[in-house]
């Protein structure tokens, strides 16, 4: 048996799931006090069909850098799934928080078209700090908290990779 922990709502909620292989393709899955026998068939990359009782679900698992997007019927659930070892490592690394220094990063590659704040400026939560253009559209990269801009890493006109650090707010 293996135990997995799913982190939901950006890490604010946790669910523990036990999985046991009964016979090839058949699993016993325990969530909370619910026990399910599930027949699972992996079709190809990212596509898993599971039959719970007689209900058949075609589930798409879109694995990203850390999270997985689970597409099911009309819903998309974004979660992180960790085994016990990974969960311990993750806990040691610290909980998700907006306390202290926060680094602003661009979620997509693009070009910095405007730096709205300078070092020392006060910012409110949700206020734009840097504008990054990608795919012909301008996007505000916003501050996650009230605070002061302590560092800016980019200049107007600069090209940035996805995940690049833009600024630090404290």
């Amino acid at each position: 048996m293996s135990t997995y922990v799913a982190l939901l709502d950006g890490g604010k909620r946790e669910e523990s799931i036990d999985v046991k292989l009964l016979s090839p393709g058949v699993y016993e899955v325990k969530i909370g006090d619910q026990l399910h026998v599930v027949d699972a068939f992996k079709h190809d990359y990212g596509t898993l069909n599971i039959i719970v009782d007689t209900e058949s679900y075609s589930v798409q698992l879109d694995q990203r850098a850390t999270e997985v997007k689970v597409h099911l019927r009309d819903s998309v659930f974004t979660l992180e799934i960790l085994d016990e070892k990974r969960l311990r490592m993750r806990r040691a690394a610290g909980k998700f928080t907006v306390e202290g220094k926060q680094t602003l990063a661009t979620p997509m590659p693009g070009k910095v078209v405007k730096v709205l704040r300078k070092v020392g400026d006060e910012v409110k939560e949700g206020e734009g700090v840097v504008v990054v253009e990608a795919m012909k559209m301008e996007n505000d990269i916003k501050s996650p908290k009230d605070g002061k801009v302590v560092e800016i890493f980019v200049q107007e006109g600069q090209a940035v990779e996805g995940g690049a650090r833009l600024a630090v707010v404290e």
Partner: protein
Amino acid sequence: MPETRTIKKILVANRGEIAVRVLRTAREMGLRTVAVYSDADRGALHVRLAHEAVHIGPPPSGESYLVIDKIVEACRVTRADAVHPGYGFLSEKAEFARALDKAGIVFIGPRPESMDAMGVKTTARKNMAAAGVPTVPGSPAPIAEEKEAKAFAESIGYPVMIKAAAGGGGKGMKKCDRPEDFLPLWQSARREAGGAFGDDRLYIEKFLEKPRHVEIQVFFDAHGNGIWIGERECSVQRRQQKVIEESPSCILDEKMRRAMGEVAVKAGKAVGYRGAGTVEFLVDAGRNFYFLEMNTRLQVEHPVTEMCTGLDLVRMQIEVAQGLAIPAQEQVVRSGHAIEARVYAEDPARNFMPSPGKITYLRVPGGPGIRDDSGVYAGWLVPQFYDPMISKLLAWAPTRERAIARLLRALGDYHVHGITTNVPYLRNALRHPAFGSGDYDTGFCARYAKELLVPPDAKYEQTALIAAAIAAFKRDHDEAEAFAARAGEAQSVRSNWARIGRARALRGAVR
């Protein structure tokens, strides 16, 4: 009688899904094809589908797809005798058509004079008014003085729209509800227009309440024939960007359709139009229609018309460019209902932030009445430099109700991994009661913004967790098995050379 000329090789001066769309028809017609590509598009689908391909520069379109000289040079090198411009990029640049003409290459589109006549909005409005085409009430020419402009706004009554004469894409366009807001909005529109178009001339139009955007597809040949090929309703828009288009429009009856069609043909004839064009109208709550602008190119949403008529508009464009005649008005028969949904690489949950990146998995729907006009494939890295639209998914069915159901079904089978798309947003829009009733206007996306962003259904959360946990278990289990298999393999050495080598090493014979 205009001369006919044969086209043997077409260069497609575009990228993405429209380049793929044009290449498909060109290949069906047995023509040789040439693609052009920037550094970011070396691996793009359109490059794979063309017979020849020419590199035209770095990723930014200003240094590649928009450089007239590079396209003309690519034609010269490949001896292409015609260019299809697609939409966007150089498609509505009269100087591009002129440059090709000078080089003896056929431009598959209208004459440059027609493009000039429709390019500046106030000129287009004046031409249309002179031809007896109804326009939105407004100033006949750009107004220079802000005091004069304000007086004009008061004379036609608020609310009004302040618009850029050189306008497009919503830049330099402001809605003004009250006289006290007029001057700041006017000045802001002037700055925006000057920055966006290098031309800060403004004019004023009456704002129509609950306007619908309905456009008519028209076609003209060099023999003086002009026809209209039905309408497309494009009122589902977000930030001046069309999202869902359909034909027929729920607001037109046969009489109004014919009236608009005839007006649209008149608009084209007034500027000596040739080839495919679209005349855009606004329809107000009282079902009065007004000329908005004419797009002198093939539209993104042209497949809606193709599905309702069985025509291939790209083939017709090429035939007109060869000097052939278009079908007669009576030969155009429309049937059923078609809807198009634009699949964008963007994340609606994060304020529609673009989502470029690598497509790790792609499965697209099929089945009756479905058409997928895509420009991507699994493994393709969607570049950050261009439009976020990756595909247009269409459904045709005998009735509107069935077309909606069919498109919903198909979108449910549309799977893109690695990047985020607006597919769930499209499904919510199609399912919205206001869309279902057909009673919607250009305010649809803004008015129902919250309802179109539905969070995941809590009743499926457990099932999602089960699936994710089993997938993780399988992954770990398979990894462990593969590891064990590799370890076993290492123990039973198959090669005799390796066995001898190892034995010698153990004896210490060879160092």
